[in-house]
Each structure stands twice: as structure tokens, then as C-alpha cells.
């Protein structure tokens, strides 16, 4: 039994590829937990970052610097009354959030956090991700229709039109990256997520820099389309607050609404991870060729630990700056405890075996985090597109440019 459990640890395959059900299950659990934590963290970070962009403080009351705010929010949403409109279509209304959450989480089966850190390495990984994430629009349409109300219906129609349109531009950008992966001896590319990163490893470059500027343009197209796909600002028409009150989830409340929230954020993380995998070198550390060699490997492998230590220091600075009033004593202690935990994690991450194992996940997460920060930044900066302008951008700019990039990539691949 113990052998069966430990047998996988030395494998260089993903649990799915190794046919190890137990470890696949463990990975699924880990991803589920990690994703939930990431969504909670994103919630806090978004509110904090947006607040600081807008010269406010954001959540400050629950816990030190509002650290416990997402927990409080989650609790509030769970114990809130769950309202179902009398005229709603009960079954569909009930199914819609489940459907959205299910699709948002399913895509993470193929996300490669590292060469072995994925649930499974599917032959059609990219296709699977695009397909399953495109299913989430069904949930949105179901929600809008089942609410039996004008504003949600318009929101749902808008979002389905928007997502179907931008999926095409997205697909074209993806194909050009897949084309780049076929530049090897065998001449065949791959749709596997892990294979794509390995192709970038083999070609010693991130695809975003490949055939400059073709890779970059494809990446930009994808980056725009992925914001539209996840219904975020400046493409947040389906839930445009000033026009449609809240779009497709106007009639949802409490736990059901929180499922939509969860799905939105995990979908953001999912598409970001596609972008990272396809263009930003997935789990590869920065400058794998320029700064190669033992020393640089060591230096870069220290980053995860250093990050946590840095965060811990940040927390301790907060402790020092906390007002010295008895009222704040518990908060100060809490923040100090939080810093201590972060520091401890940092220290553990310095240990060589952990360090080697965790590096890939760390670099992948950092890249995704940067992408998530961009999401928040867009939201703080841009006004909202109008519907016809949005369609125009999708069909008249992104689609032709995407086709052009695809053709040029093919030509460049044959000639260069």
C-alpha cells in the first residue's frame, strides 16, 4: 500500500499519464483547494489594489488590513437568504451556477503547473481547455433566461454573442502558437499543454518572442480576447452595472451568486494560465538560456522562499506601523502571526528538495499573478466599450489580424 502511494513520487509523468488514480485524485483536491484559496486571495487583492489605485484604503476593518474580509464575505454569502424569483424556471435557475462553476474548475485538469504537476497530460489539452471554457457561456445563458426578467436576459444575450465572437479570435491566436510548437525535427506540433511548454524549452524561447513580432501580436490578441471571454472590464458589458444593473446574475443572491463569483475568478485564472502556457513559457524560469548554469539555477530557485520572506517582512512592517492602542492588540498579534506563517513557509521553501520540486509551480503562479494584476489594472483604467464597438473590435480588428498572424507564422515557419 505504502509502496503504491510513494511509487508515484519519483515518476516524471503526470498522475493521469502514469495511470495513478490515487495521485490524480490528490492533485484534483490540491487544485480545488489551491484555486479556492487563490480566488479568496484575488478577491482581497482586487479590492485592495483597486482601492489604492483609486486613492482609498479598501477593506480595513475585518482583520489587519482587511485580511479576513474575504472570509467574512464568504460567510455572509453562505448564510444569506437564497432568493429564487417566483416566476423563474426553477430547474434551470438551479443548474446554471453549478454548470458555470463546473466548467470553470474542469479546465484545471490539464493546466501544467510543472512538468509533472498536472492532473493529466491530455493529447488535446489546449482544445480541451478552450472547449470546456466555452461551455461556461451556456451556464450564463441559462442563468439569464431562467431569471425570467428583462435585464438578465439582455445580459445573457450580450454575453453569449460576445463570448462566441471572441472565441474565434482566441482560437486563431492559439493556433499560431500551436504552429510554432511544430518547429522541430519531426515537424509535428502538439496540442498538449505540457508538450507546448516543452516545445518552448526545446526552442530556447518563449513563444511571445518567437518570430518577433508575430508571437507578440498573437499574444496580444489572446490577451484582449481573454478579457472579453471572462466578461471583465473594459468588456464587462454583460454585467455592465450602469446599464443592466448586474447583467445575467441580477436575480441571483447568496450562495448561488457566490458560485458565479467563484466561477468568474477561476475562469480568469484559467485563461491566464492558457496564456502563460502558450506564450510565456509556462513553468520555465525567466532567462533560461541567457542566465544558464548552476549558479543561476541556484539563484532562481531561491526566489520562492525569498518571496515569502519578503511578504513576511511586509507583514512585520505592518505590525510595527499598527497603532499602539489596546483596541488594535488582537489585530497586531494576528498580523504578526500571519507574517510568522509566511516566514516559516519561506524558510521551508529554502530547503533544497522542496526548492527543486516547488520552483515550477512558483514561476507558473507568478506569471499568472502578473496577468491577474493586469486584469485589475484594466478595470481601474478603462471605461466600458459599447456593444457595437465591442463587436467591431472582435470581428473587424482581432479576427483579420489573427488570420494575418497565422498566415505569416506559417510562412515564417516554413522559411526560417
Amino acid at each position, binding site marked *: 500500500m505504502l509502496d503504491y502511494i510513494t511509487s508515484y513520487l519519483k515518476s516524471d509523468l503526470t498522475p493521469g499519464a502514469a495511470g495513478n*488514480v490515487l495521485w490524480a485524485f490528490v492533485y484534483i483536491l490540491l487544485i480545488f483547494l489551491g484555486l479556492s484559496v487563490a480566488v479568496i486571495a484575488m478577491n482581497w487583492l482586487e479590492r485592495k489594489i483597486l482601492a489604492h489605485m483609486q486613492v482609498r484604503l479598501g477593506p480595513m476593518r475585518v482583520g489587519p488590513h482587511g485580511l479576513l474580509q474575504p472570509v467574512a464575505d464568504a460567510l455572509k454569502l453562505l448564510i444569506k437568504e437564497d432568493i429564487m424569483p417566483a416566476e423563474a424556471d426553477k430547474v434551470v435557475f438551479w443548474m446554471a451556477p453549478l454548470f458555470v462553476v463546473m466548467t470553470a474548475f474542469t479546465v484545471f485538469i490539464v493546466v501544467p503547473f510543472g512538468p509533472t504537476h498536472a492532473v493529466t497530460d*491530455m493529447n*488535446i489539452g489546449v482544445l*480541451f481547455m478552450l*472547449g470546456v471554457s*466555452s*461551455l461556461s457561456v451556456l451556464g450564463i445563458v441559462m442563468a439569464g433566461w431562467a431569471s425570467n426578467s428583462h435585464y438578465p436576459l439582455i445580459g445573457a444575450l450580450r454575453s*453569449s454573442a460576445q463570448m462566441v465572437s471572441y472565441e474565434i479570435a482566441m482560437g486563431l491566436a492559439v493556433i499560431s502558437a500551436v504552429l510554432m510548437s511544430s518547429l522541430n525535427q519531426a515537424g509535428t506540433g502538439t496540442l498538449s499543454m505540457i508538450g507546448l511548454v516543452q516545445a518552448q524549452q526545446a526552442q530556447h524561447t518563449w513563444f511571445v518572442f518567437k518570430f518577433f513580432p508575430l508571437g507578440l501580436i498573437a499574444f496580444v490578441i489572446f490577451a484582449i480576447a481573454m478579457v472579453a471571454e471572462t466578461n471583465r472590464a473594459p468588456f464587462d458589458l454583460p454585467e455592465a452595472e450602469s446599464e443592466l444593473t448586474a447583467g445575467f446574475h441580477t436575480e441571483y443572491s447568496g450562495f448561488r451568486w457566490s458560485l458565479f463569483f467563484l466561477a468568474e475568478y477561476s475562469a480568469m485564472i484559467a485563461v491566464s494560465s492558457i496564456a502563460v502556457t502558450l506564450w510565456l513559457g509556462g513553468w520555465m524560469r525567466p532567462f533560461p538560456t541567457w542566465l544558464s548554469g548552476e549558479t543561476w539555477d541556484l539563484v532562481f530557485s531561491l526566489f520562492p522562499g525569498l518571496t515569502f520572506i519578503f511578504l513576511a517582512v511586509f507583514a512585520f512592517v505592518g505590525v510595527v506601523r499598527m497603532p499602539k492602542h489596546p483596541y488594535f492588540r488582537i489585530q497586531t498579534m494576528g498580523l504578526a502571526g500571519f507574517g510568522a506563517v509566511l516566514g516559516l513557509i519561506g524558510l521551508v521553501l529554502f530547503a533544497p528538495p522542496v526548492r527543486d520540486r516547488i520552483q515550477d509551480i512558483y514561476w507558473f503562479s507568478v506569471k499568472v499573478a502578473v496577468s491577474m494584476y493586469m486584469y485589475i489594472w484594466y478595470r481601474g483604467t478603462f471605461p466600458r466599450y459599447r456593444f457595437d464597438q465591442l463587436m467591431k473590435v472582435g470581428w473587424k480588428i482581432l479576427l483579420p489580424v489573427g488570420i494575418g498572424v497565422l498566415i505569416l507564422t506559417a510562412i515564417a515557419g516554413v522559411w526560417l
Partner: protein
Amino acid sequence: MQPVATTFFFYLLSGLAVLGGILVITRKNPVHSALALILTLLSLAGLYLMLYAPFVAGVQIILYAGGIMVLFLFVIMLVNLERSAKEEQFNKQWIAGTAAALALGVLFILVYTGGKALFPEHLAQLPEQSNTQEVAILLYGNYMFAFEIASLLLLVAIIGAVVMAKKRI
């Protein structure tokens, strides 16, 4: 790669597909029918996966479930269908329908018994890893011409749809 509980999953997915199909024709609400159809399509995608045809499965999800059904729902929601929901579902043609179903069933049985030799006992184990490549080679090699003809046909259909739907061009 060793698939797990193959038989179980086969019956589960087939059952879901059949269930979805029955729901499609029995639901009065067209939106419910469409959702049931999505269930059927997704089960079929699962069956494709079991046949070691992941590419077909992926395309099935993207095109049918993610694309076409969304447009189906789009149209159903836009068009007012309250009237049809109240109409009698099984109307006078049930005799003809049953006859057609019976005939089809008999045909299946005849084909199965008559052509038993054509069905191999075990399916050939296709290489899963290179399936997508095989599809690509076939599409862009042997069947290049047919493929292009099909895409041309689709283009004609698109233009026709635009001409029909748009008042002024």
C-alpha cells in the same frame, strides 16, 4: 495508458445520451429540450474519448456544445415560444412515428445479424497519442479536395444567411 472502468463509463455515458435524447423530444419547453440536447452531445463527446478519438471529442465540445447550441439557445430565447409550449406535444402523427421507429429498429437488427462478420470482435487499439496528427494528415492529405469543397459550401451558407437576415446590405 490504461483506461479505468471502461465498461462502467460506456454504459453511464450511453445511458446519459439516451436519457438526453428522450428528454429532448418529451420536454414542452424548447429551452429545456435544448439543454437536454447539450447533455446528449456532451455524453457523445465522452464516448468519442473512449474510442481514443480525443480530437473528435474536443471538436464536439467546442463546436456543438459550445458554439452551435449557444446559438440555438440564443434564437430560442429571442423568439417568443410561449404559444408552442402550450400546444399538444404528441399529435396525430404518432402512428407514422412509431412505424418509422419500428422500421429503423428492424433495420438495425437486420444489419447486425446479417453483417455480423463485418464487426470485429475487438476494436483495433488506435494510438491515442498520434490521433490528432492522423486526423490532420487525412484531412489535409487524402481528403484535401473534399475538405475544401465543404468549406466552400459553408462559405456559401454564411453568405446566404447574411443575405436572408439583413434588410439592407
